[in-house]
């Protein structure tokens, strides 16, 4: 007899589906079956059952091999690393809960750290664009209940947010959208003929990197002005057609992703996409939503926002919160060799940062606090494996539309394994002890720096 846990949130993408059902073994230690989840989500739940998972911290030895150490030793190493560092980088935070993020911020305030989340290589440019021009948006349920025009720009939910189309944006029948996808027009803009584009009523396969031009052309077309024959490789007739579809809608939405944030132009591309949305509100109702990647990257931005006032890349090294993307962002700090220690938390820059940044991580004291082996752990001095958030421990997470959901614990972590919140809390407390023990002179100068 297995038991079933319902209303489980899925800790993969920013869609943060909360209708997953998970069958667990009687003793509550193993995930047996996963229902309602997409392929990626299911893989994540089932992977917690992997037998070869690392369950104790590992310290890198001189010969490059890793040796198992206790959590106590790992806490000691991490606390000392922070205390001895002048400018530690604390990167990641998107695969954990808001409780852990909050404790991380206490450590940053105590040690003059820089906290940056995975938005820095994801929707960081979107956050900058919002600071430039605002963002008219809505919750995903509004799309389900009202939207009859849906535009995907530089995003491929069929691959990256697999249930998005069926749960929120294209297929569901909502209050004012009883016909489901039959009542919705779908426009897709991408340099590839993606699996999402194959579903579109209006596919627009643009030349890669020409998003800004095409968005500008949309704004021209919305105003009914003349366009050149082709923009970004798209014939003007197609652009006018797309804009006509948008204007004829009662409620439209633009979803956008890495296609615009990671191509040249970056934040300026999003500026323009937001201005398209604002312009459209002269004619009908229009919203725009960033397809946030990790399930709680949004939460990290929220906690940083209410505690410090900035959504990512916040530098506490002067004692107070500072934010200057391009300077306080992880890749710039690493490439300029401005940090002297790094804690990677709930993320994998080893895989997802350009190799020049990864080389710097390998050179400085480093701790990777993540559930399992990945390229980051294998170049770090210390790997601290922890329970998988939202599967082996609960906690607050924010969906891509900023809606907070309390994740459920589904199974017990392997025996003796700490959650990342427990690990971080003990590191915080140990840092406080070490700081209190420091000789008075050292403490005074440290406080002077902090003040």
């Amino acid at each position, binding site marked *: 007899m297995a038991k079933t846990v319902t209303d489980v949130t899925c800790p*993969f993408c920013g869609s943060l589906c909360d209708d997953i059902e998970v069958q667990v073994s009687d003793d509550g230690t193993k995930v047996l079956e996963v229902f309602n989840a997409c*392929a*990626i989500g299911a*893989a*994540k739940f089932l*992977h917690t059952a*992997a037998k070869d998972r690392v369950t104790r911290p590992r310290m890198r030895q001189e010969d*490059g091999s890793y040796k198992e150490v206790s959590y106590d030793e790992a806490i000691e190493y991490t606390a000392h690393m922070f205390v001895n560092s002048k400018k530690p980088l604390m990167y990641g935070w998107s695969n954990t809960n808001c409780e852990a993020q909050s404790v991380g911020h206490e450590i940053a305030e105590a040690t003059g750290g820089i906290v940056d989340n995975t938005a*820095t*290589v994801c929707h*960081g*440019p979107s956050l*900058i664009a919002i600071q430039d021009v605002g963002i008219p948006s809505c919750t995903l349920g509004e799309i389900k209940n009202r939207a009859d025009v849906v535009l995907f720009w530089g995003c*491929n939910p*069929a*691959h*990256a947010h*697999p249930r998005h189309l069926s749960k929120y944006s294209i297929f569901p029948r909502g209050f004012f959208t009883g016909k489901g996808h039959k009542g919705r027009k779908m426009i897709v803009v991408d*340099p*590839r*003929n*993606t*699996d999402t*584009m194959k579903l579109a009523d209006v596919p627009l*396969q643009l030349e*890669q*990197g020409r998003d800004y031009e095409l968005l500008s052309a949309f704004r021209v077309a919305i105003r009914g002005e003349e366009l050149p024959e082709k923009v970004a490789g798209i014939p003007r007739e197609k652009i006018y057609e797309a804009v006509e579809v948008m204007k004829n809608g009662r409620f439209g939405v633009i979803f956008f992703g*890495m*296609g615009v*944030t*990671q*191509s*040249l132009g*970056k*934040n300026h591309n999003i500026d323009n996409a937001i201005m398209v949305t604002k312009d459209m509100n002269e004619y009908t109702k229009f919203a725009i939503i960033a397809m946030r990647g990790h399930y709680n990257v949004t939460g990290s931005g929220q906690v940083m926002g209410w505690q410090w006032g900035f959504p990512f*890349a916040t530098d506490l090294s002067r004692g107070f919160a500072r934010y200057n*993307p*391009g300077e306080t*962002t*992880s*890749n*710039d700090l690493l*490439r300029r060799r401005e940090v002297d220690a790094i804690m990677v938390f709930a993320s994998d820059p*080893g*895989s*997802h*940062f*350009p*190799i*020049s*940044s*990864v*080389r710097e*991580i390998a050179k400085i004291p480093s701790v990777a606090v993540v559930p*399992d*082996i*990945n*390229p980051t752990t*294998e*170049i770090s001095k210390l790997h601290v494996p922890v329970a998988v958030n939202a599967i082996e421990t609960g906690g607050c997470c924010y969906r891509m539309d900023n809606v907070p959901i309390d994740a459920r614990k589904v199974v017990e972590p392997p025996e003796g394994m700490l959650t990342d919140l427990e690990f971080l809390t003990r590191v915080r407390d140990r840092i406080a002890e070490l700081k209190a023990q420091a000789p008075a002179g050292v403490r005074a100068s440290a406080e002077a720096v902090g003040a």
Partner: protein
Amino acid sequence: MAESISLNLISGRTIQQGVAMEGGKSKQPYTEACGIIEMDPEDLKRLGIYRNTHVRVTSDYGSVVVKAVEATQGPHPGLAFIPMGVWANAVVNPNTYGVGMPTFKGTPIQVSPAANEPVLSSIELVQMLVKE
């Protein structure tokens, strides 16, 4: 047939990358999902290689061996796609131009056949590259 061809590289997520990643980044399926370059059939022809042969991808920022596969989300001649991961990041343009975001999409690359060179796993590759 050419010794090498120039393409424009983008990286991003695929569902295979996502599934394999959650299954474990030290495992073989992850290499199979991400140690690839998706190329348009036209470009494969230009380079004169069969599908599923190894190629060396080189940019101003690095070099990596991956398996050339036919694009599933094409056609997109002139454009190449490596799923997000260590392989792509060995060659992408790391410059943020002052906004924090590396230029993950739109890196000019050269692709040449490398039939006899191995595709490394993510761990082997990252450990090798950080020593360079």
